[in-house]
């Protein structure tokens, strides 16, 4: 087999050449915008939308005003809620998909993928109809006698959490499923042949081996929750309008780009902290066990 020129160069030079496209992409798409965002956060906010400067005023404002801290905490609460739901139901679904064969597996995969082919706003307005006072969910609950009068599901925490979970869960399922696909079922059978019960064999083999995928899936679901914009607006109340909405509003309506940059950075730092903590916890637990 004749190798191409870069690989013929061998060793260090080949590695550098092979890494270059990825490094350029990462720097261009992630690092440079982050630097711009940090720089923007240090600008003066007046005259609007910003003027060049070097001040921590926007950071001080975030720390000084309870409104924004309250928004951050409620955003975290919503993000953690939908992450928990996505893990509980998504992991079970991904496992079911992994263990299924043939048409059943295709069917289960299609259920996850099909919603992604339509616009998220259209899907959310679809949920608004389902959850509405005159909608099918209230109809069913009334007919079953579970409620005596229509319940307001829309424009509540429940509505926002449901909409976000619906949007985020497919990503969790697909990530976790792809990790499960890399696990050899024979490992589980070996554990069982050595006396482990059903649950223990899964906990001792599948869980540790899938922990990187679990951590990645949790991170993605949490990131969806932290950055949520459309879901809380369409299905939530103003208490669910989180950091994503506030950053948008501060940019477009408030015309205060430095403060919007601070809000965005707070979001990003919160996500990074969570991802680091989760990855450490999940992966460490996986490797220990």
């Amino acid at each position, binding site marked *: 087999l004749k190798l191409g020129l870069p690989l013929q160069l061998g060793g260090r030079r080949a590695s550098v050449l092979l890494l270059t496209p990825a490094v350029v992409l990462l720097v261009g798409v992630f690092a440079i915008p982050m630097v711009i965002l940090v720089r923007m956060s240090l600008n003066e906010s*007046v*005259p*609007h*939308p910003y003027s060049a400067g070097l001040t921590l005023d926007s950071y001080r404002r975030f720390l000084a*005003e309870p*409104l924004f801290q*309250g*928004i951050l905490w*409620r955003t975290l609460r919503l993000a953690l809620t939908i992450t928990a739901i996505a893990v509980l139901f998504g992991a079970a679904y991904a496992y079911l998909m992994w263990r299924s064969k043939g048409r059943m597996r295709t069917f289960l995969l299609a259920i996850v993928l099909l919603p992604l082919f339509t616009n998220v706003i259209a899907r959310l*307005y679809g949920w*608004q*109809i389902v959850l*509405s*006072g*005159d*909608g099918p969910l209230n109809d069913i609950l009334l007919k079953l006698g579970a409620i005596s009068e229509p319940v*307001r599901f*829309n*424009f509540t925490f429940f509505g926002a959490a449901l909409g976000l979970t619906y949007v985020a869960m497919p990503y969790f399922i697909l990530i976790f499923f792809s990790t499960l696909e890399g696990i050899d079922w024979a490992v589980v059978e070996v554990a069982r042949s050595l006396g482990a019960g059903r649950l223990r064999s899964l906990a001792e083999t599948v869980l540790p081996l899938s922990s990187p995928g679990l951590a990645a899936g949790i991170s993605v679901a949490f990131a969806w929750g932290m950055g949520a914009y459309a879901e809380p*607006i*369409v299905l939530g*109340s*103003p*208490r669910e*309008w989180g950091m994503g909405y506030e950053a948008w509003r501060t*940019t*477009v*309506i*408030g*015309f*205060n780009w430095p403060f919007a940059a601070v809000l965005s950075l707070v979001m990003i730092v919160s996500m990074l902290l969570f991802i680091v903590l989760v990855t450490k916890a999940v992966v460490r637990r996986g490797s220990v066990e």
Partner: protein
Amino acid sequence: MNGQGPRTGRVQRLEVQRLPGAIDRREFIRRAGGSLFAVSVGGGLLAACGGAEEKPTGTAVPFEGEELNVAAWSGPYARGFREFFVPSFEQATGARVTILDEWAEIVDKIIAAPKDDPPFDLAIGEGYTQIYGLQSNAWTKINYDNVPNSKDLYSWFFEADQIDDEDDAYGVPFGYAYEVIGWNKEKLPGFQPTSWADLWRPEVQGHLGMDAGFFNYALGAAAFKLGYDPATLQVDTPELDQVLAETGKLDVALWYTSGAQSVAALQAGDIDVAQMYIEDIGNLATQDPTFDWVFPQEGAMGWVDYYMPVRGSKVKELAEAFANHLLDPGAQTEFAANHYYWMSNQKYEIPSDKAQYFPTTDEELRQKAHMFDYDVWLPHFFDETGVYTRFSQEVLKR
């Protein structure tokens, strides 16, 4: 983007028809006052130029082959533009016009683009967008010599300033729109509102939709109820405190940030009554008799849409020619028949079904049309006064 950008899929593509005669653009502008719509509808530029006998004297169709990007409000408004303004203009000028569906990000997009290559050549804006654009040098002054139809406008449109006296220097006033009360007649059979105060009636609490995107309109309803002028509510005044407290008393099911949300919630039965944009509830009530709306007795808070040439545009004359066409009485008549704007040209014909509440004189416009003074309100929006923070905490309970 001028003349080079691809046309988007949502833009109606219209074949430019060759005109029976041709004139240069100076002559075109001179003759275009109040006549372009008649030209294209009538089937030729000759009619527009004063009758079939008069022959065009130039050698080229004005603006032929040039492209114009116009930012307009998205939804039915933009569709109306494509239907009532674009075909006649393209036919008469040989230019191609792209109407872009936009909303709050117009100025941000201009700021973010290269100074000599703006995303639009002509942009819509009410007082709020205008003043932000002015502060950001997004607009360039309009040459009224190129807008002869402006001589026929109601003088109120030049008097009514949302921002000092600068608004009509940078853009031509197109029409006035407003918010009204819309409701579901089947859900609320005995409800016949006449005043903004009716939003506080006990039977509608918990079933209300209110505007939180432009939160001044929600506060405006309370100001009307309390007998204050919403246009100039100042910070640190007892009036503003009362208005915030009064708005906070409402049991609101939906705080919406876009008009589409209020329509969807009203149709879905999640709200039964709402403060609504006239274009939204007007169209809905026309299509579905379940819904109705009323122009409150106190008047309505609204805004004037201006069209402003964007700085850096390479086709400013074409933009001004289109702005002139937007003031064409024939085209404005067509637009008003299918929309709810109070148009700016005195010569437009008010649709018979809207005659009862469309003003016909400057005096009526002064009485009925209210607008926010954005020299006062802009600091509220920017939260320099803390009013937005108070609204978020005391009214939205965030």
